[in-house]
């Protein structure tokens, strides 16, 4: 007898499946187009025939247009640094918000939340002033500094910490752990899925951030990939999709491949994070 494993009550219908796939194809279309165009000669960038010849030319042209090797290094260092500092600072702050009662807590929390709303792009001039007073212009630190304290991370971690059973905290205290030890040895490991989830968001944001890094850096030694990518949006000449898509794929490849390889873990992280 041919029996379904589960009854229809929670099974998506074939209509759902078709719709879901259609939407997915639509969603992935830009990426698909980028792949198509990047691997074909320019004249095929707007024509889709199966027999179009393949080429890596666009990539080599793109690669030569800027010192991408160095930019990759800078970007990697930058996102790693930002992420590391964000996590440390947000962890401490979130712990304070989640596990301490103190005067001014709501005010402090509101101050943090306000950052969610203030786009750093508007504060360019002011922040540039601060950086040049600190003598940090044209350094990786300067790119990262305004983002080190992340309201989003603090908020997310606070939620997570609040969800960690209070008994674990108490157990650690009875065992003689200090607040810092408790944080480090109990809260942080337990919040690992949230850390992963946040890392994904933070890395993809800073990997792609553009205006502020452009403004605050001058030399190849401090500039990230996006600044290199900008070479291709050559205003006077119109859009050359072949090279732009090649450059886009090239610069976002690490993220895309990373996501493909670890997508299970990432998605599960988000899920286990139970972000609400």
């Amino acid at each position, binding site marked *: 007898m041919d029996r379904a494993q589960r009854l229809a009550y929670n099974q998506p219908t074939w209509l759902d499946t078709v719709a879901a796939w259609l939407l997915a194809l639509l969603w992935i279309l830009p990426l698909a187009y980028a792949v198509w165009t990047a691997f074909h000669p320019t004249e095929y960038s707007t024509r889709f025939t199966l027999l179009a010849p393949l080429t890596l030319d666009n990539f080599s042209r793109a690669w030569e247009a800027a010192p991408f090797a160095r930019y990759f290094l800078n970007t990697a260092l930058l996102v790693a640094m930002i992420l590391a500092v964000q996590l440390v600072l947000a962890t401490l702050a979130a712990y304070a918000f989640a596990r301490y009662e103190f005067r001014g807590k709501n005010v402090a929390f509101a101050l943090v939340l306000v950052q969610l709303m203030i786009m750093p792009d508007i504060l360019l001039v002011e922040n540039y002033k601060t950086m040049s007073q600190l003598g940090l212009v044209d350094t990786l630190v300067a790119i990262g500094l305004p983002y080190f304290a992340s309201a989003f991370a603090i908020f997310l971690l606070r939620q997570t910490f609040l969800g960690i059973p209070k*008994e674990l905290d108490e*157990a*650690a*205290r*009875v*065992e*003689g*752990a200090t607040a810092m030890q408790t944080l480090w040895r109990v809260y942080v490991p*337990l919040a690992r899925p949230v850390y992963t989830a946040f890392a994904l968001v933070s890395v993809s944001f800073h990997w792609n951030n553009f205006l502020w890094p452009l403004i605050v850096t001058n030399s190849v030694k401090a500039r990230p990939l996006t600044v290199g990518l900008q070479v291709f949006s050559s205003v006077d000449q119109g859009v050359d999709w072949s090279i732009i898509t090649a450059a886009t794929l090239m610069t976002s490849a690490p993220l895309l491949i990373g996501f493909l390889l670890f997508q299970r873990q990432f998605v599960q992280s988000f899920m286990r994070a139970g972000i609400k």
Partner: protein
Amino acid sequence: MSSIQLVDVAKRWGTTTALDDIQLNIASGSFCVLLGPSGCGKSTTLRIIAGLETASAGQVLIDGRDVTLLPPAQRGVAMVFQNYALFPHLSVADNIVFGLSVRKLPAAESAKRLAETAELLGLSALLDRKPSQLSGGQQQRVALARALVAQAKVCLMDEPLSNLDAQLRQEMRTELRQLQQRLGLTVVYVTHDQAEAMSMADQVVLLNKGRIEQAATPRDLYAHPATTFAAAFIGTPSMNLLRLDGGRIAGSDIPASRDAHWLGVRPESVALGGRVPATVRSVEYLGADLILHCGIGSEMLTVRTGGQADLAAGSAVLLEWADAAAHHFDSQGQRLHP
């Protein structure tokens, strides 16, 4: 070695009083059970001893030393939490030595103690597992191991067995009790299960609404409940409390052996075949026992009899109980001594 005293302890949250005027002496090396219904203040008492809460008034002495304002880590107590509070991300071994590594004990010493404790509790084969890979009973033992490895002489436990199923709970009770005796620990143990309290305790402290109702040995508590509350709370099925009306069971003309407000008789003290007529209202079969719910006058009387008896609801029975098995209480619920 490690006695515990609570002197005049009270705990208030805003306007609610969780504990009031608690006086308690727990002898060193004894097994003390805090018993009572939900919300009576058991956990609060335990947490005040542990230092997880500060008493609003009064003092906590451990071994005669005033620890009222010390943080938990400095009181020399270990604690087993209700749901074990095992660190889910750490292996069994790491869970057990958590406190040691926090206190920076030398690795060799720590490994030695771990091995001993694991051996003692039969956990040696499980040291590499995560808590989620353990059964409830095993988790319970890990929590216990974590408490024991610090070699604190006082061990506090908050309903440690409440999550286990009946069978396992039974086994763990025996195991826990044996361990406590072997190691000479002072244990303060919270439960709301009177059977658990009776089978394990040297001293049962029965709490009610933040006050101590009675503190006594299990046998004493069972034989001489100080109040109707204690009488009804201890024993399953619980003691029958029949209202007396002019020396007779209310609604009937069956006389009681002495005048009181309440007549208490335990179900197992009532025997079939006597002089007191009653009607079986309902029957509960428990294998070894049969529980009869009988009506006498306007009162209900529960009778425990052997499981092989075959009585259906509606039958008329004759009952009896010894005078010595009768307890008497006044209208305040206080025991009337003979």
